């Protein structure tokens, strides 16, 4: 049977496998959200966590950036209200409190192609990801040079290399792609995986959100 890992569960799985993820924690009520947020240090983001919501942005299930306890409190109530008014029957697990991601957005994914088998993708992320389709693919497993070439094939790579806009160590992305390739290779039960967005900046790389289909 297919199983879909979303949000906090997907992030926990990735973290367990050694991939860098943004610090995230599930808060079941507003006070928990506030205390988690202050412990993490501001700014943070709040995201709805429910098996009924796959596309959080489209649903309006994200609030960011939040800079204070009162903003967190307000955002928590808004999210809970929006969710319950449109899904009275649905199950709200809580709200994810997450360290605010920053930098360039990438999408990294794996899938199983009928002919090629497991395949790795990296692309420029953000809201135009489908429209721009700035992507590069390789067969899993990849090697170091493959990772480098994948990044260089992206048109968005020019932004990553621009010293004025940011200083990203491309080697950080390379090793992240190698890790993702290894993860998919060592877990043949993973059918499809979207790590989207993945934030990359001078501080490093981290998965912000993920969806994983296993079977």
């Amino acid at each position: 049977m297919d199983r879909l890992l979303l949000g906090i569960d997907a992030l926990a799985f990735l973290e367990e496998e050694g991939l860098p993820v943004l610090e995230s924690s599930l808060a079941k009520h507003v006070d928990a959200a506030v205390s988690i947020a202050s412990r993490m240090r501001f700014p943070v983001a709040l995201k709805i966590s429910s098996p009924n919501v796959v596309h959080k942005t489209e649903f309006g299930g994200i609030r960011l950036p939040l800079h204070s306890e009162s903003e967190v409190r307000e955002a928590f109530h808004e999210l809970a209200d929006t969710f319950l008014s449109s899904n009275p029957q649905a199950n709200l697990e809580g709200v994810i409190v997450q360290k605010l991601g920053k930098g360039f957005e990438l999408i990294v994914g794996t899938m199983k192609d009928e002919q090629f088998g497991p395949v790795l993708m990296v692309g420029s992320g953000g809201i135009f990801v489908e429209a721009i389709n700035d992507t590069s693919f390789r067969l899993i497993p990849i090697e170091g040079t493959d990772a480098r070439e994948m990044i260089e094939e992206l048109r968005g790579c020019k932004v990553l290399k621009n010293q004025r806009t940011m200083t990203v160590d491309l080697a950080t992305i390379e090793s992240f792609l190698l890790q993702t390739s290894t993860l998919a290779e060592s877990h043949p039960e993973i059918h499809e995986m979207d790590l989207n967005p993945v934030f990359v900046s001078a501080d490093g790389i981290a998965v912000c959100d993920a969806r994983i289909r296993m079977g």
Partner: protein
Amino acid sequence: MSERLEKLFCPDSVAVVGASNGFDKLGYHVMKSLIQGKYGGEIFPVNPKGEIVWGLHSYPSLRDIRGTIDLAVIVVPASLVPQVLHECGQKMVKGVVLITAGFREIEDQKGGVLETEIRNIADQYALPILGPNTFGFVNPTFEINASFTSELSLLEKGGVALVSQSGGIAHLCGFLATEQRIGFSKLIGLGNRCNVDFAEVLGYLVERDKATKVIALYLEGLDRPREMVEAAKSLRGTKPIIAYKAGKGEKSDSASRFHTGSLAGNYRIWRGAFRQAGILEVSSIEELLDTAKVLDSCPPPGGPRIAVLSSQAGPGMVASDAIEKSGLKLSHFTARTQDRINSLLPPIAMRTNPVDMGPAWYSPQDILDLFEAVLEDEGTDGIIFMAMYASANENLANEIAQYVKRVDFLGKPVVACLSAPREIWNDAITGIDKRKGFAVLPTPERSVVAMGNLWRVKLIVDNGG
């Protein structure tokens, strides 16, 4: 594995099953190809009527032939193929070219069933089959044309092995190549790839076929593309492999709720797989042939710095525009080189790169001196050399051909674009093309694109050596 193809491509004897005297039978044309292609081994026509075929005694069946048969070319109707394959197996035939069509390529499901049946028979005897549904192959090095088109015997000998999934494209490439003086080591049609696929042929061409210097692939789609990719990857750094992929339609899995799935068109994955395998992908049939020719004829450039020398300014500008798009750079001449150029050209022309050799029009020797100055330039890795015919420079191509005869093999690649009216300069161009590191291509842009690919292949080979 690939050694089993040795006697298929270089057979000492060939049986043609379905050989015929009737022009409307493919068995007639296969016989014509073998005989007019001056095949040096023994030919056994097999025909149930037992008549004289193409002047040769024919045999009612393979069983009736005494002596060994290396290759059987089969052109009988599809329904008779299983029986013939059993006979091949029993006769210890070493390889089969199965020209017959009507297998899994047809809509009728019976075709697919029949193909499975023949694959099983082939397995039983460990019999490699090129095809079914292939035009055959031509091996100019070994002087055998085992195809149904005798005119393909006119292919020049050379270092290019072209492996095609389509017979039509193989014909197109063969005829274009004849016009462009491209030399082949093999022209192979894989057809339905019953049990001989790209992976195995690549292994054969790289490891066993000394005549092959560069491998050009035309492919549409494969059932098991990973095998081909793995094979190419393991051969990376040996002989250059270039490919043209048709069927680029971006059919992605739009039903996928995942971004990765919906972004992944089959061709996008192919592109990545080619790069991963160290195969240089090209974007047209022309580029496939141009690149193959340059790889076969020119030494690899030591870097991307290219000089453009043109007898007329316009072609030089067009080439210069194409340089950067192709991943190359216009070279900067050293002071010494620039002095030599300046001494040969008055300051009325462009003397830095691109060099307008126009003022030297009437003096082939000055043009050759300019060429040599740039060839020896330390800041230059390769040359695009262009001369368009004009009545006043009629003698130029001959002088260049004489020069080519005199010099040693060049250490740098020179792609030359020499254009002239039909019949004029033909002999001279033949004396220049593919010699000593020169390759001649029809236009400035195509010359530059091919030079760019020569550089990219160098990078691929160096990375994977």
